């Protein structure tokens, strides 16, 4: 019985060593191969800082993505880089997860409603191609790493 237990313990430990070594090797390849060095790319940080300096304090900014390419991560990078300036994200992208709910979720607010609610006068639009939320004037922001598509910033028509 003792011999059997020792054998079983050795098997469990060897299996753990195998699984662990494989897991560490796989993560090490990722960590030192392709993982970014910054949570928010410094290029986004610096561009967000420059744009924040151009808008009045306490002003909210609209972010309009385009479902092409998928935008969920990228839009939040801008949102967190702008913080504490409020970046209101207008969701164009349908969630890939279809929820099973007894009733439909409340419809997301329309662009005009968001503009009205936050008195928004400025917008960023990114995508392939970016959408025009009603710019009065706009300029193209230099591309940022990991997002090889156009990004526009500008003032909206009243």
């Amino acid at each position: 019985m003792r011999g059997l237990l020792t054998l079983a313990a050795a098997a469990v430990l060897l299996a753990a060593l195998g699984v662990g070594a494989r897991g560490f090797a796989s993560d090490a390849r990722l960590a030192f191969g392709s993982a970014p060095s910054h949570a928010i790319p410094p290029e986004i940080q610096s561009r967000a800082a420059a744009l924040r300096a151009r808008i009045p304090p306490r002003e909210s900014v609209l972010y309009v993505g385009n479902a092409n390419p998928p935008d969920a991560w990228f839009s939040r990078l801008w949102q967190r880089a702008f913080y504490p300036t409020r970046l209101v994200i207008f969701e164009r992208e349908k969630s890939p997860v279809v929820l099973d709910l007894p009733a439909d979720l409340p419809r997301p607010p329309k662009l005009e409603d968001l503009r009205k609610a936050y008195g928004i006068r400025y917008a960023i639009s990114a995508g392939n191609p970016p959408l025009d939320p009603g710019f009065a004037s706009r300029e193209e922001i230099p591309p940022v790493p990991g997002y090889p598509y156009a990004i526009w910033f500008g003032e909206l028509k009243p």
Partner: protein
Amino acid sequence: MSARIPETLVTLLLAAVFGLAGDLVLARRSSSLREWIESFLVGAGVSAAALFPLSLALPGRGLGALASLLAAAAVLSIIQRRRAPKDSSPRLEGRSSLARDPLALALFSIAAASGIAFLVLNWRYVYLWDGFQIWASKAQVLFYSGDLAPDLIPGDYFNSKLAYPPLVPMFEALLSMLRGGFDFDALKPPFALFYLAMAVATYHAARPSAGRTGALAATALLCLLPAVSTGTAAGGYADLPLAAYVAAVAAAFLGDGAGKDRALPWLIACLTTVKSEGAILAVAFCAVALVEPLVRHRRPTFRAGITFAAPTAVFLFLRISYVRWIGAGDTTYAPINTWSLGRAFGRIPDVLRLAAQALLDWKTWGLFWAVFLLAAIALLVTRSGPGARTAAAATLAGLAAYTAVFLFTNWPVRLQVEQAYPRLLQQLAPAAAVVIVLAYAKLREAASAAPAAA
């Protein structure tokens, strides 16, 4: 990436302050690493629970008030340390050098190497999805707004996550406050601390019953798990901190500390401050702890039961009030009602099958959960002693509760199980590792006794 030495030092300072505050809550004077870790976890958990009432009382200044209260608690605790006599925790006999025990040395080396691998990954990775989108983002909001007040933008994904418990964001926000600014790239050092807490607490949970080698085996088994030491654990998720609390609960229940009874109810209550599902664990652990004396035909006094459950009840009340106050409406899970119960009933076979697949997934867990299930059954059906049986029952209860939540998901069940179950299992892994070595120790003891009896 830099070595983040200033942030590491600030993290250690914060840990010391949490530890001193925890000592005050537990009315004791920590002297060993195990006691310090317990006090650190209690101090951090109580602070996180206090953040909500402080946010209500002092809008915009809740975090600052918490920092001031923590500083005052630390000073008071230091004064008490000077006055109070040192706790005389019993020390285990038979301490000998690791070098004289090659197996123990090998197991220690495996655990240490795994810990170092985690530290390297934790340093190198910035954030994976939840680490950035939920936990560190909530810390950013807390740091700038100074309280837990919601700033909800209609339709934003982040809204539903604002109601998550505040312990990890609180730690990250306090770290930012002390370092003089918020930087997403500077917030990883606390996770190393939680990893250390988890490993040390797991060792101490197994040590009294399984001996040093058994305890090191539990720690090595745990630290070798990819779900515990790589991936999301190193990506800034809150599952690792919750695993540290689970390990500390196991250590407080099974360990050899003199003050274990004092720390246990607080540690169970603190589970509610780390992740939403911590509330499920807190209720499950509390229920097992309260029922355990009945199973042993010992009638607990009403007063003892109330005293034990009080911290969890208060923390649950704060947690529910906080969720209602935020009012963000997370649609991931359905509330329990006639409709969701009917749907849940029909999902039982699917959830069981998917859970079994996940538990037995070789690439993620090896033999870990298969052996845990055998070990838990062995402890429950043999005369293994009340402590080991209760530990097995509590871990099984946690596993059952964590499996049952998928009956109520609004997501496609398979997708939700694939994404969330490994992280829920990660939280329970410290307790499961302890159960495995306890069963091994008991079975070995029984095998040794059998020939002697014959």
